[in-house]
């Protein structure tokens, strides 16, 4: 036997006891070739292309999950940003109809989420982009599986404050119609074109016809090895995490490549992000607490996140030649029991959460705020977060849920993967006059970097 019993046990226990899984396999599909001036024909082409390919993805992923004994939790589809293929149908009603088509294609093929109902507006909006944003409250509240994104900033173009202002108002309207709709929308700076994770996945314009992207998971695995080394210094701790992430990334690489090969599509990337769930022992916050912090949010948390993500990237980069997507450490509030607990105990507030996102993508994720928060304040929260991404050449995003009728201290339970979000306090002072200026924050200078 070339593999030792210790090694077999280590791998088997990662899956059986530490919740290791392939969090998502996301097939990117180019829909440009479905464009048709006849709207009915266009919808049929979109439905057929998604449905044919998605069904194969589901059956092949299930087969490989069995072969390797690694659960492949989610099978998803990302498509060309919808605003780019709706140029000849720029009405709100038709945007809602195409969203319903995407929703139906996803349901009929056993896909839990389909991403790409979005637009790239970092420099400015086309007519189609504006109609798409206008349709979002209806789309997000009436469809089940359609996820949406807007890219509103980049380090090359700067930050489109006009779009951010519209998004603040759009989120308020969406929450009033159906609060869970907000959980299916993310606004980005520097959105990656090959991100496999929802809600922000889309099939970018630089991608081939198809691309198979993989998101691994493994907070439980990392916590397990950190717990086994309670006294080592930070250099040693980083080494231990690197070695572990190397192993779990290799599992993703193996399964991703084989799945792409079996589907006859190019393999895209492995996304290194540590993605928590609300399962006990599957929390990123708990890893930071195993480092030695009493609660995430305590002073030292920013450094702890920086150390963690740096070690994850180094271990993962050694394991796969195709790293991409978000490749950060996810710290969504509602999807991580440790984060929920830290907010409820008063250890973590919105300001500290924002600080943590400065050293790890993917930004302010899955957090709830009071429903009476003014739209300008929501836009300002988004603008702050995107500014961190624009200035620091990194991806940042915001998935915020203004919950009608709820106040700080209350919480909202989404159930399933989306978890439970305690409502967080926002700064009561107004940003309205600043946000009203609108326009575009110019791109940052790339020299003089101190």
């Amino acid at each position, binding site marked *: *036997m070339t593999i030792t*019993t210790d*090694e077999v*046990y280590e*791998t*088997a226990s990662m899956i*059986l006891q530490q919740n290791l899984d392939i969090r998502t396999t996301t097939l990117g599909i180019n829909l440009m070739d479905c464009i048709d001036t006849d709207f009915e024909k266009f919808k049929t082409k979109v439905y057929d292309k998604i449905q044919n390919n998605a069904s194969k993805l589901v059956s092949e992923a299930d087969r490989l999950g069995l072969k*390797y004994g690694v659960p492949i939790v989610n099978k998803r589809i990302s498509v060309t940003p919808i605003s780019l293929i709706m140029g000849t149908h720029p009405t709100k009603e038709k945007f809602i109809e195409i969203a319903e088509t995407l929703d139906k294609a996803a349901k009929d093929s056993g896909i839990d989420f389909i991403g790409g109902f979005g637009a790239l507006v970092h420099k400015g909006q086309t007519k189609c982009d504006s109609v798409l944003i206008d349709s979002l409250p209806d789309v997000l509240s009436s469809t089940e599986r359609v996820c949406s994104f807007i890219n509103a900033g980049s380090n090359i173009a700067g930050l489109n404050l006009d779009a951010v202002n519209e998004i603040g108002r759009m989120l308020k309207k969406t929450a009033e119609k159906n609060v869970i709709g907000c959980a299916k929308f993310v606004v980005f700076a520097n959105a990656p074109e090959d991100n496999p994770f929802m809600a922000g996945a889309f099939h970018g314009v630089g991608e081939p016809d198809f691309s198979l992207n993989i998101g691994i998971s493994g907070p439980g695995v990392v916590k397990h090895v950190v717990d086994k080394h309670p006294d080592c210094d930070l250099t040693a701790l980083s080494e231990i995490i690197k070695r572990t992430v190397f*192993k779990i990334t290799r599992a993703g690489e193996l399964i991703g490549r084989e799945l792409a090969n079996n589907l006859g599509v190019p393999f895209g990337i492995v996304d290194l992000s540590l993605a928590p769930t609300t399962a006990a022992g599957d929390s990123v916050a708990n890893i930071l607490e195993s480092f030695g912090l009493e609660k995430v949010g305590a002073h030292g948390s920013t450094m702890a996140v920086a150390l963690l993500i740096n070690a994850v990237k180094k271990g993962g980069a050694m394991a796969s030649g195709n790293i991409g997507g978000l490749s950060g450490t996810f710290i969504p509030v509602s999807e991580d029991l440790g984060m929920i607990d830290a907010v409820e105990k008063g250890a973590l507030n919105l300001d500290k959460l924002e600080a943590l996102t400065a050293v790890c993508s993917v930004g302010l994720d899955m957090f709830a705020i009071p429903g009476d928060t003014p739209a300008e304040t929501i836009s300002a929260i988004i603008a702050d977060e995107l500014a961190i991404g624009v200035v620091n050449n990194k991806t940042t995003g915001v998935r915020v849920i203004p919950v009608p009728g709820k106040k700080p201290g209350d919480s909202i339970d989404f159930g399933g993967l989306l978890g439970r979000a305690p409502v967080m306090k926002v700064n009561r002072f107004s940003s309205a006059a600043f946000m009203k200026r609108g326009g575009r924050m110019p791109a940052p200078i790339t020299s003089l970097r101190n």
Partner: protein
Amino acid sequence: MEKELLFITVIGEDQKGIVAKISGLMFDNCINIEDIDMGVKEGYFVMTMFVDIKESKKPLADISDELKKLGKDIGLNIQIQHENLFKMMHRV
């Protein structure tokens, strides 16, 4: 003929007849046992069995289901995984 090699891992509390029950299931399905090892890891009894399923009477999905059922009956976690996973994870 090229082999198709997988690892079966059994984790839990030691008890009589574990090897007999699993090797019986392998024999019944024409699966050859290439190697077997056992010991205690982190306080758990761990048995690993290296098997070739090339001539198996049943597809992997059925073997996996039968092992899971057996594991449930005797209160142990049983996992079957292709050897390539271990090669990828533990060899550079």
